């Protein structure tokens, strides 16, 4: 399923642009913090592991969905007021430290497909600066959602060439039950449209 998903979804990723404009940084930081906040203990998620915090009733907050795979986090941030494009993000303990948003050349890896080398932006995920994320800009967010798989295995490899960095694994994670969360995300987007 993801093979199909990546064929089109990462096709969108391959058209990645650089980091959001400076004026959007604060908004993006806010969205990422919302993405990183785990659901409250005891709340029933739409699918185990998935968190879709906004159903569209909060018009100031972006529509997003995130999946916690142990220490790893993956998610989608829908286009919203302030930026027209959506983002796919991955975060985990292996994502290297960045004190400011920086461009990064990485390969997206899945089972059953060829690697795709794309540009990502490395960004601090939380206020304390302990977690860092790779942001992949999705030029066509709806298409990326259309082809998103219900189950996914995904890894990110370093593609910058240098003495100490080449093809190291920077992230490896998986999700299940993505379609139910996607439906909730679409409901949020429709409510805010």
């Amino acid at each position: 399923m993801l093979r199909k998903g990546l064929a089109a979804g990462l096709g969108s990723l391959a058209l990645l642009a650089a980091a959001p404009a400076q004026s959007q940084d604060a908004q993006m930081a806010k969205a990422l913090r919302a993405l990183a906040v785990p659901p409250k203990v005891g709340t029933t998620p739409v699918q185990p592991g998935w968190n879709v915090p906004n159903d569209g009733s909060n018009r100031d907050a972006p529509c997003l969905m995130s999946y916690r795979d142990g220490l790893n986090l993956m998610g989608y941030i829908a286009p919203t007021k302030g930026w027209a494009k959506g983002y796919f993000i991955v975060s985990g303990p292996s994502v290297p430290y960045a004190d400011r948003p920086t461009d990064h050349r990485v390969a997206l890896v899945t089972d059953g497909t060829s690697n795709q080398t794309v540009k990502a932006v490395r960004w601090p995920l939380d206020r304390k600066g302990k977690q860092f994320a790779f942001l992949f800009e999705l030029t066509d967010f709806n298409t990326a959602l259309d082809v998103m798989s219900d189950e996914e295995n995904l890894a990110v490899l370093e593609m910058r060439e240098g003495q100490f960095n080449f093809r190291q694994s920077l992230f490896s994670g998986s999700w299940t039950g993505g379609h139910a969360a996607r439906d909730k995300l679409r409901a949020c987007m429709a409510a805010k449209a």
Partner: protein
Amino acid sequence: MTRPFRNRAARGLSLLAVTALAAFAMAPQIASAAQEREKLTREERKERERERKYRSSIDQALATAHKDGKAILIVAVPAFKHKYPTEALIDENLADEVTDTGTSAAIDLSMASEWVHTQYPELMIAVSQNLNSGAIGPAGFFYRFEGRRRDYLAYIVEPGTYALRTISYPRPRSSFANRHGTVAARGAGSIGQLRQVASTMLEAEQTEVFLNAATTTVAASEQCNWWYKGVCTQSVYTPEHTRQTRAAGFYPRTDYLPIPALDVSIRLTGDVASFSTGAGEIVLIDGLFPEPLETQLAVSNCRTGESMQVCALQAIDLTRAAGSLDELRNYDFVAAHFPLLGQLVGAAQHRPLSLNATALGQVTYGERFRAEAR
């Protein structure tokens, strides 16, 4: 030794004068070195005080959490320093001895086991030598106590049952074609998923290279030694000379070479291992981990992409490293600035893991079990 104005004949002796001058000039440097030592000592004292405060704050946090009804969990893991007693041994074993000695500090340092609360999956702990709460938040250990054969990682956890869900580690010098040992599966079902990402690690290679002697030429110079009423009445002349800065010989060099490696993630969906804690309990549990160089796996239905392989996991060998309440209680918590935890540990219980696995026998770092689909 010195000459008034320019007496070239004195050149032969002038170096001695320079030496004397140098000794004079060194005096302030010696004084500043002593000050530096004093400063370092102050820095060390400050550092020790910072560390004491840091430990005391963690000690207080553990005691407060316990008072608030949280459980204190202590997980035994093989003592890293017992396996790699010296820095040199760590470096030597970081990756490149993986196929020669059966040890890999890279694996031991980076392996992480994630235990997830069965009722609230957003609650978990990550058991790893590297992942402390400062780095990853409350899922990490708050402090590591070093025992003789075991290290003990202390966590604050919500009461409940935790199941082993994920194990991840790097595997140097490995590829899809050269990977884990495999065993035949007993049943057709699976207990989880094995995901391997073909990546690269850097292997430190220590070599010695021969370097020729290196010299530097110091230009001739003249320096005034005695000023009298604004006139230099005595100067010191130093002729051009050559000084050796390095003797010829073999010198150590570290090269970093990329080697193929696998980034391994094992996700367990079956009921392989779990433990329970109650409110306000102090619980010691055994460590449970694969030993990748000897780990036997059974897999099926593999899908392989350019750099990722995902397989259904049918069986895996895990080693249980037993913790010791005696070793834990004999630890000098007061000296380590953890007096409150020391009091709590007096009431600690050794809670056996609930294992759905078959015992295979004793190995170097514990007892080995095989978890498999039936």
